[in-house]
């Protein structure tokens, strides 16, 4: 959740209505929604600005990076040096505020300029090439981790101190603490290299062009299995612990006891009463992690040579590709914002109480 606070509105006329009509409800909820949207817009603007500034704080200039690359191939003429500086160092010749405005202007048209690392490919093309990979791999595995972790956590937390809890909780703390690129390296070594159950790396068989082609899709899926398993394995425990703790406290709630007293089946008590309530805080953290999926994937993608946004970000940083960096940061920030926004709305459906006090 974005942790949004809305300042209490000043009291209007004390409308003395016994039961607020449906349309009024909608109107009030609408105004709350508007305020939220306003917040998200401000946050988006701030993120965009920050994204503009951050790369500019980085040392070095892309021109020298490119020149170095060129000089590996052969001597570079002084003319060429100048040209490169004009093309790639250009960002620094203009005053900052002017760059800022042209940057903002570009954003509105979805124009992020040309990538430097992949010059002269437009940044938007580059980002598009990585977006789907990341979203599919990380999105799917984050969802799987969330679902599995939450289910296991619910089982463990149902009886705190029970055998499942005793086994699973410390184990998951341990797994949660493993450095995940390290774990990924082990998994690759064992399951891909030694056992040959999975392909070593990449997003799909490299000779297949991305598209709605069954061969490509099945290849993409086989390639995604191992990285996804790594992500699931290392992030499942977080959800598990989270859910377990919530569950352990929720099972002591009076309404769970009452449900038991009502003679409902154990399954019904656990799912409809305990887990249903315990899952709420996890859901809001889920929003954040879904949003961060895009940015948090850098290390995994590096280990697996996966062609997603994380790899692109790494290349952008290595090559001082400001435009690409900016665009990626923006994409990340925006996914977080959008995920939060969607979750905000969804949360209202999940927790009836929030419909009342939307602050």
């Amino acid at each position, binding site marked *: 959740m974005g942790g949004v606070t809305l300042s209490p509105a000043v009291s209007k006329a004390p409308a003395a209505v016994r039961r607020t009509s449906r349309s009024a409800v909608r109107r009030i909820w609408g105004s709350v929604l508007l305020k939220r949207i306003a917040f998200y817009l401000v946050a988006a603007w701030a993120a965009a600005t920050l994204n503009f500034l951050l790369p500019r704080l980085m040392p070095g200039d892309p021109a020298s990076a490119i020149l170095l690359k060129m000089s590996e191939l052969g001597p570079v003429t002084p003319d060429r040096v100048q040209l490169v500086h004009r093309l790639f160092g250009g960002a620094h010749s203009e005053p900052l505020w002017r760059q800022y405005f042209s940057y903002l202007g570009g954003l509105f048209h979805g124009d992020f300029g040309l990538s430097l690392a992949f010059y002269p490919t437009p940044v938007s093309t580059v980002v598009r090439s990585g977006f789907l990979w990341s979203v599919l791999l990380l999105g799917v595995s984050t969802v799987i981790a969330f679902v599995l972790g939450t289910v296991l956590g619910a089982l463990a937390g149902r009886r705190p*101190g029970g055998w499942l809890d005793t086994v699973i909780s410390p184990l998951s703390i341990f797994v949660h603490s493993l450095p995940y690129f390290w774990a990924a390296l082990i998994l690759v070594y064992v399951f891909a290299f030694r056992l040959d159950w999975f392909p070593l790396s990449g997003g799909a068989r490299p000779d297949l062009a991305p598209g709605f082609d069954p061969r490509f899709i099945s290849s993409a899926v086989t390639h995604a299995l191992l990285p996804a398993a790594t992500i699931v394995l290392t992030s499942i425990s977080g959800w598990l612990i989270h859910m377990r703790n919530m569950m352990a406290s929720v099972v002591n709630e009076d309404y769970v*006891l009452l449900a038991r007293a009502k003679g409902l089946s154990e399954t019904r008590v656990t799912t409809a009463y305990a887990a*249903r309530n315990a899952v709420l805080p996890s859901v809001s953290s889920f929003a954040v992690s879904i949003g961060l999926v895009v940015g948090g994937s850098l290390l995994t993608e590096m280990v697996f040579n996966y062609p997603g946004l994380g790899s692109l970000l790494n290349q952008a940083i290595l090559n001082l590709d400001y435009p690409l960096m900016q665009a990626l940061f923006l994409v990340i920030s925006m996914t977080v914002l959008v995920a939060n926004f969607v979750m905000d709305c969804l949360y209202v459906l*999940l927790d*009836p*109480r929030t419909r009342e006090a939307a602050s």
Partner: protein
Amino acid sequence: MTADPILDVAGLTVEYGTDRPSRAVDDISFRLHRGEILGVAGESGSGKSTLMTAVTRLERPPARIVAGSVRYHPRDGEPVDLLGAPNRQLRELRWDRLAVVFQSAMTALNPVMRVGAQFVDVLRAHRRIGRKEAWQRAAELLEMVGIPGDRARNYPHEFSGGMRQRAAIALALACDPEIIVMDEPTTAVDVVMQRQILGRLQELQAQFGFAIVFITHDLSLLVELADRIMIMYAGRVVETGAAATIYRDPLHPYTLGLRDSSPSLHGRPRTVRAIGGSAPDLWDLPKGCAFHPRCPRRTDGCDTVRPPLLTVGGHGTACLLTGPATQEQS
């Protein structure tokens, strides 16, 4: 009123913790009759809630029932020992025969489920009825406690405290139980509301004839509500008898203290005194009578002999001085 027993509790003992257990309920026996209201009063921490959860088998760790029996007498068939009953059997008895109302209805209703759905849930678990019919019955039940039936679609937070409390009572009635155990069901509402709820409760009880175990620390309330009263102190029953008798002629010094420390509203202003001292530590109970350190009338032996609960003519007390045995002697 029949003298037909419905619940027989004998020697019930409940402890908290395993390393250094504390006895929150110590060797309590009582009998509940059909259609009767049994009030349980006592100081905070005297073990009232513990007793109630043990009787209904809703105790949660670290509570452990270490001794005793709770026998339920169905109208037809053999008595069932609730403590020994397998989970399946217990589940069938729950709510169908034995319902509870918790101390705070605020937290006893599932906040993310519509109120009606929580009725439907239990109705469908114990009665073979369709979803639609169940909803209808939920609405009827709510109307029975004075809540419009269409409010069944609301969530608990959309109810006021009093409404929730009444909904909890309606919920307890859902399957026409024979026993309802209520643990301070009205602490969260003010006197006017409390009066209203209890009034409704009494009407319903008159109508359906279920038995009630009513727990509170408000003695004056019980005197008005209950048929019989049981006074608890430090996990034991110190006095039991008909409500009016207990109020008029309390035998145990603790009951007397309780009565005398409440100022009167209408009568002649009387001198009220506090009992003094503070509740005992369950881990370190005084020897002998647990009340003796606070007792204004303690004598020799109070600190060594633990007085048993002795009953004469339906009025029992556990005190060396005023117990029936002593009275007979004097």
